[in-house]
């Protein structure tokens, strides 16, 4: 009887979460990746060149994991799907402007930063080609901020906070700061390519940062909360996979 009860509550939560995801995505807007053609050629090429090696390393890491533990493919799909959902959600924020979280944190905590470089890039390619959100020429720059800086930040934060033993706090902070840093990186990229005529790089950076900093904060907190929520379910139902991943980590 008790498990029956629990099952219904969990089902309700899952349905509710799905509805929430669907409903709140119904707001059309461009969000935060650098738009197609909006980086000068030399910068576009530069960021492509910087991002490509990470992507290749990520592919290697991904194939290694799936070859060794094919049963983890489902969990990989989950990490990818989570990023897919969250980066489609243009959420209204306190500044009266909309932006979206990235959802990179969850996968990073599970599989490490390089795997998320690949999954994040796939999401960016989907958005660049189908939705005209981001772009092919700016893909290198967007991959660098969302799928390289983001996951590495999450990785560092998670491992630092985990030393205190508070896992949920570590997950929350990793997912939250990853989102913020992604957008800070975007601002840096734009400021480098378009330094202000008066004040140069720094003035531009402050201007671009002020555009998103406050907007992004509540979204980053939301992302942190959602990541902890999904983690709770994984801990309850995905023990096997989490154990396999622990073992993987120890071997490396």
């Amino acid at each position: 009887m008790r498990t029956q009860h629990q099952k219904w509550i969990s089902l309700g939560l899952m349905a509710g979460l799905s509805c929430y995801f669907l409903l709140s995505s119904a707001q059309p807007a461009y969000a935060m990746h650098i738009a197609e053609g909006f980086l000068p050629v030399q910068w576009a090429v530069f960021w492509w060149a910087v991002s490509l090696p990470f992507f290749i390393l990520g592919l290697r890491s991904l194939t290694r994991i799936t070859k060794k533990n094919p049963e983890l493919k489902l969990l990989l799909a989950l990490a990818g799907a989570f990023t897919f959902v969250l980066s489609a959600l243009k959420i209204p924020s306190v500044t009266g402007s909309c932006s979206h979280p990235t959802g990179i944190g969850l996968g990073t905590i599970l599989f490490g930063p390089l795997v998320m470089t690949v999954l994040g890039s796939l999401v960016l390619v989907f958005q660049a080609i189908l939705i005209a959100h981001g772009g092919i020429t700016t893909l290198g720059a967007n991959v660098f901020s969302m799928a390289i800086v983001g996951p590495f930040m999450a990785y560092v934060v998670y491992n630092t906070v985990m030393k205190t033993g508070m896992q949920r706090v570590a997950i929350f902070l990793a997912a939250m700061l990853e989102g913020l840093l992604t957008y800070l990186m975007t601002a840096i990229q734009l400021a480098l390519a378009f330094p202000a005529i008066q004040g140069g790089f720094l003035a531009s950076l402050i201007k671009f940062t002020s555009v998103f900093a406050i907007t992004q904060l509540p979204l980053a907190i939301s992302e942190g909360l959602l990541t902890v929520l999904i983690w709770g379910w994984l801990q309850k139902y995905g023990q096997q996979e989490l154990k396999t991943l622990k073992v993987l980590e120890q071997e490396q």
Partner: protein
Amino acid sequence: MNKQLSSGLLIAGVLILLMGPLLALQGREFGATDGNFTEAIEKDYPNYKPWFQPVIRDSGPEVQTFLFTLQAGIGAGVTGYILGLYQGRSEKHKKDKL
């Protein structure tokens, strides 16, 4: 802390963060953040022209809504499916043990 209670609190937190701005800024139209970016660039660099166009041109807000909803729908569907599968598996495991 009780697992269900904490899940509830997490969802409540997200809902408050989501609804808060909508309620507080009623009647205002929510813009997009990167629109602000491109505007800021155009102010300082009025001569800069984007040198590449999206492969599939923007076909208006309706199509955009569709595509973003599609993306979220696929993502949420896969997420829910896998979590459900895991849950079913762990429940079966529990039953087999009894």
